[in-house]
């Protein structure tokens, strides 16, 4: 029983070592999508999270609730939403983005941004409260306060980005729907794994699974370590 397991793993590592061109192409498409969408999500989500953590304003609680609700949305729901918006007869159909990497990036941004906002807001909230008296006492302006908040939470921000990247790499539901898993165009690691599994090409699926696990594990480990460093620093 275990022999077949080790055999599949062995063959998978052989495929990884062989530098299969299609696999390289799929990994490259995945990286392009994950890096772009995680950067965009971070650039939108991190400032929003910091603002929520720093300032009290009317409607803040509503925003936090909306954000937390969006964090829990299933990827396929976002995928269907983006599909409805960008399909040929949809409101943005004339942009011809459906079944492109751009559409996948849009879906990823919708999925990941609330996660970034939530992570940053939660981790920076204690700093925001601790900072309040000193900030008002000194009379720090909004820009200075914002920059100081970013500096105070730099480890948490780095962790939020890394988690965003890992999430973008590992996502399958939404990108399958809006990307269509088209060979040489929108095929990414997760959708390629699903395809290979469905067609019985298990070794390729396992090889890509190993790569994806290694990437997400590596990023999550770095993110986790950074968050621990940040928390320890705050406790000092």
């Amino acid at each position, binding site marked *: 029983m275990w022999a077949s397991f080790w055999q599949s793993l062995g063959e998978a590592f052989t495929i990884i070592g062989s530098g299969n061109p299609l696999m390289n192409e799929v990994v490259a498409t995945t990286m392009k999508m994950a890096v772009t969408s995680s950067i965009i999500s971070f650039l939108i989500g991190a400032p929003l999270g910091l603002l929520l953590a720093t300032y009290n304003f009317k409607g803040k609680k509503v925003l936090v609730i909306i954000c937390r609700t969006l964090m829990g949305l299933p990827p396929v729901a976002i995928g269907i939403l983006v599909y409805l918006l960008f399909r040929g007869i949809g409101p943005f159909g004339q942009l011809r983005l459906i079944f492109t990497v751009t559409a996948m990036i849009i879906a990823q941004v919708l999925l990941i941004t609330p996660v970034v906002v939530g992570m940053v807001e939660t981790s920076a909230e204690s700093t925001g409260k601790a900072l309040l008296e000193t900030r*008002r*006492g000194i009379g720090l302006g909004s820009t200075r306060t914002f920059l100081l908040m970013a500096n*105070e939470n730099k480890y948490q921000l780095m962790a939020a980005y890394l988690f965003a990247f890992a999430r973008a790499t590992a996502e399958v539901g939404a990108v399958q729907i809006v990307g269509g898993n088209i060979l040489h165009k929108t095929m990414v690691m997760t959708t390629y794994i699903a395809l290979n599994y469905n067609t019985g090409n298990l070794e390729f699926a396992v090889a890509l699974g190993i790569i994806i696990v290694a990437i997400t594990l590596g990023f999550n480990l770095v993110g986790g370590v950074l968050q621990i460093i940040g928390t320890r*620093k705050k406790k000092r």
Partner: protein
Amino acid sequence: MKIVAKKTFDRKVLDVDVQLEEHKIYALIGANGSGKSTLLKVLSSVINPDTDSSIDIPFKNDEVYYMPQMPYTFDLSVYNNIKLGIPLKYSTGEKIYCKYRIDTMLKTIDLYQLRKANAQTLSGGERQKMALIRSLVVRHNLLLLDEPTSAMDINATLKAEELIIKYKEEFDGTIIMATHSIKQAQRLADVVLFLDNGEIKEIADAQTFIDHPQSDELKDFLQKI
């Protein structure tokens, strides 16, 4: 300055009606929970007073500086933490003078050798010294200090008081500081206000407080310290 300040949380924590003069040092004394910090927070707009309050201070918000009891220490060097107290609008000349003042105060209070250290590595007393210098580096029309030396030893406290006196001599702003020490109030303040249960029970100079306490609450407070 006419201050009618009230603040209610689940109970009334502040109910003050007092007239203060400018260019003086006022000390707020009183036990824990007497309303000293709440009054300073209300005056600095850190917390909003009850709607029936009326605070008539002839200064804008940015002319009032508040040093909290537990000042936040930024993840920056000691020097850069202090520099946050310098307004961005200051001219180069003014900033150079501020730098000179910072260096002088750092040396006075024995913090100069730590000026490049990360402020989050400092002890509680050192952090308080740093926050005090930050509050004294430029002139404020109204300076509010909430127990600014509570974490310092006696030597550091005396040096910190020296800085406060020099600041007053140079800038002649109004200072209101909370303290638990009647002796500190005696050394620094022109006028002492005794707070109990959120109300000002007595106003006098520190010596009169010590020699002729009027209210039972003040007598009780003085006996316990």
